[in-house]
């Protein structure tokens, strides 16, 4: 079977010429375009999977797991129903539950904290760095006798400060679970996000860099026994058709979604490259706009830009201005987790995490997906410059 060519993914620069009479539209997401570019081979593969009748735990799932673990450099991979479930099951596999505390960041998607709550444990937040990732210097003060794990988030596709966090974890005998939902193939000194800690949790939600046609996720582990436990936890605790060794849940990646991901995995490099190219273009084009802060990439980071986030004053005005010009943007995330109504019982309030709170008012995610052309990126940058001029 012939896959779509990489060029179909990394949009050619001339993909969408701006016609002076038709204003350029720059959407934040382009899923329809993605499918149009690859529908023939994708549908052919889906038909194959369907014909097999093995729609749960089919060979596609095992194939995907082995390809992902090989590519990302982990001993084992366990595919599950979603990125959220990857976190919940990881916490459970490590025996983290009621009475335990897990240290994490307050500026992630809600699922990071809700996974901890659903495992029965308590999320303990620490503030973040200017680049939005967990500040290792603040972790130690958050460690209590009940702390069992650190759960750093590789937000926006930028690897968190793993060496510092691993050192802290080793010193305090804590587990490390990485939330790499936004960071597939992000690297730190060449090592993939999600392979530093005990377990690495990924999402393949439709909006992620490697995306399924529905909810999907996976967990990486270098510990075969942990992987075995995850395999039974995702399937009702069953070790065979008859025997439930422990309580589990139903959180299996559908064979069908595994087939979609297998079809797309070979394109991931091109997707990442296109996103990196767009991000670097933004950086170059906005470098001399003092009102725009785009956290720099450190030399050891290989960022995959699930989102490209700038930090600006008058953020809401800028967002409205861009929208009027046909440019879609997003905010990840407008309300920090500790200020959500759901988190009230945790006892935090405004002022608990000043850096994250200030960022929440200033962050704006620009379109960075692989179907943007460089003229699209230029168009966005020009409009941002105009706004601030």
């Amino acid at each position, binding site marked *: 079977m012939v896959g779509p060519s990489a060029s179909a993914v990394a949009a050619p620069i001339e993909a969408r010429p701006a016609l002076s009479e038709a204003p350029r539209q720059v959407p934040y997401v382009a899923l329809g375009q993605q499918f149009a570019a690859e529908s023939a081979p994708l549908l052919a593969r889906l038909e194959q999977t369907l014909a097999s*009748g093995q729609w749960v735990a089919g060979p596609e799932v095992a194939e995907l797991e082995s390809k992902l673990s090989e590519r990302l450099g982990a001993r084992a991979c366990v595919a599950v129903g979603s990125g959220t479930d990857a976190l919940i099951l990881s916490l459970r596999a490590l025996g983290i539950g009621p009475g335990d505390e897990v240290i994490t960041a307050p500026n992630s998607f809600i699922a990071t904290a809700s996974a901890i709550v659903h495992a029965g444990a308590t999320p303990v937040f620490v503030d973040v760095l200017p680049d939005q990732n967990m500040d290792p210097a603040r972790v130690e003060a958050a460690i209590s006798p009940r702390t069992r794990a650190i759960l750093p988030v590789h937000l926006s596709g930028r690897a968190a400060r793993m060496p510092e966090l691993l050192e802290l974890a080793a010193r305090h005998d804590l587990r490390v679970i990485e939330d790499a939902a936004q960071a597939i193939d992000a690297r730190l000194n060449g090592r993939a996000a999600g392979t530093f800690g005990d377990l690495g949790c990924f999402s393949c939600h439709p909006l992620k860099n490697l995306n399924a046609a529905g909810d999907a996720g996976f967990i990486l582990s270098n510990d075969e026994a942990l992987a075995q436990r995850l395999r039974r936890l995702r399937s009702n605790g069953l070790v065979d058709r008859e025997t439930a060794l422990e309580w589990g849940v139903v959180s299996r990646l559908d064979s069908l979604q595994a087939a979609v991901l297998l079809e797309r995995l070979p394109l991931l490099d091109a997707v990442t490259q296109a996103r990196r190219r767009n991000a670097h273009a933004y950086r170059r084009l906005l470098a001399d706009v003092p009102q725009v802060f785009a956290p720099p990439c450190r030399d050891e980071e290989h960022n995959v830009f699930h989102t490209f986030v700038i930090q600006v004053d008058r953020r809401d005005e800028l967002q409205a201005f861009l929208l009027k010009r046909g440019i879609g943007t997003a905010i990840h995330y407008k309300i920090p987790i500790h200020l959500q109504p759901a988190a009230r019982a945790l006892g935090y309030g405004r002022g608990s995490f000043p850096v994250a709170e200030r960022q929440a008012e200033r962050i704006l995610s620009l379109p960075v997906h692989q179907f943007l052309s460089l003229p699209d990126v230029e168009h966005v940058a020009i409009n941002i410059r105009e706004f601030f001029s």
Partner: protein
Amino acid sequence: MNVRYSYLSQQFGQIDELLEQIRAFVKTGDFTLGAELTRFESSFARLIGAEHAIGVGSGTDALKLPLKALGVGHGDEVITTANTFIATAGAINEVGARPVFVDCGPDFCMDVSQVERAITKATKAIMPVHFTGYMTDMPRLQAIAERHGLPLVEDACQAILADIGGKRAGTYGVAGGFSLHPLKNLNVWGDGGVIVTNDGAFADKLRLLRNHGLKNRDEIACFGYNSRLDTLQAVVGNWLIGSAESITQGRIERAAYYDQQLGAIPQLRLPPRYADRRTVFHLYMVHAQERDALQQHCLSRGIECKVHYPIPLYRQEGLRHLGYRQGDFPVADAQAANVLSFPCDQHLSREEQDFVIETVREFYGAAR
């Protein structure tokens, strides 16, 4: 002749039209909580005769989320049946509560007469399981639940379109959970589930719980889960849902033929058949003498017959901490030792059924 248990390749043998719909769907990019899901949910609600239907990630989650929405949690007890698939008790355990079992009746469902003595101060809900497609005695159970002020959450995973006097499985309790797993009567192409309810506020709560507690893109009302029925699977569901009645009828007709033929074999015993209840035969299960030898014999002839389940749930390794002991549920034990399930799906031919019947006759003839 081989008589296979799974008929999926036959069911989806002619799917050009469906693939066209899938093709059109994937181009929309509408993958999460999309329009096709909403359409499926309203068709499903209509099919069951409920006000609301909420598509979730699996049948297990279709049981877990209603318990969560009821506020069932740590220290609480939920009464259910001693022989069911692990997921029923798993859902109860998932919310932090403790499953309390009652023994089964001759129809494999909860023996409703034993429920009352299992109720304690900690009991927060009752979860009957319409096992194999039989209806639990819901009118009687409802009266008990009302008397004790306990909500009912129905495990209707195996019982789509089963009813008592026309009132369908899933519509008796505050909510009913259904599974769309590939092997269920109404099935999609992977894990999937649906919850039905007649309570609008309860439905809203369930919609929050399945989607991270998100009230809108930015605001979170409560800690929730990620348990959405993929919109892609809803496309499959929409394609199939019009056949739900004929699938059910196909199973009932095949069961009736088995009954007529297998019922005449003295070493087999049929479970009770009810005139006023519609049993939908997700499984066609009989009691068999020398069950294991019969199963081996059938398997050796290419007939995929199965046991649901050889180890009753309450005796599973993973549940040992609940403190039950062998013998606590004698009916479930007896059933685990002698039940056997034969293929009974809508695609099974008369010829295949005759082969099953002949093979069983042959076994007992030789054994005599």
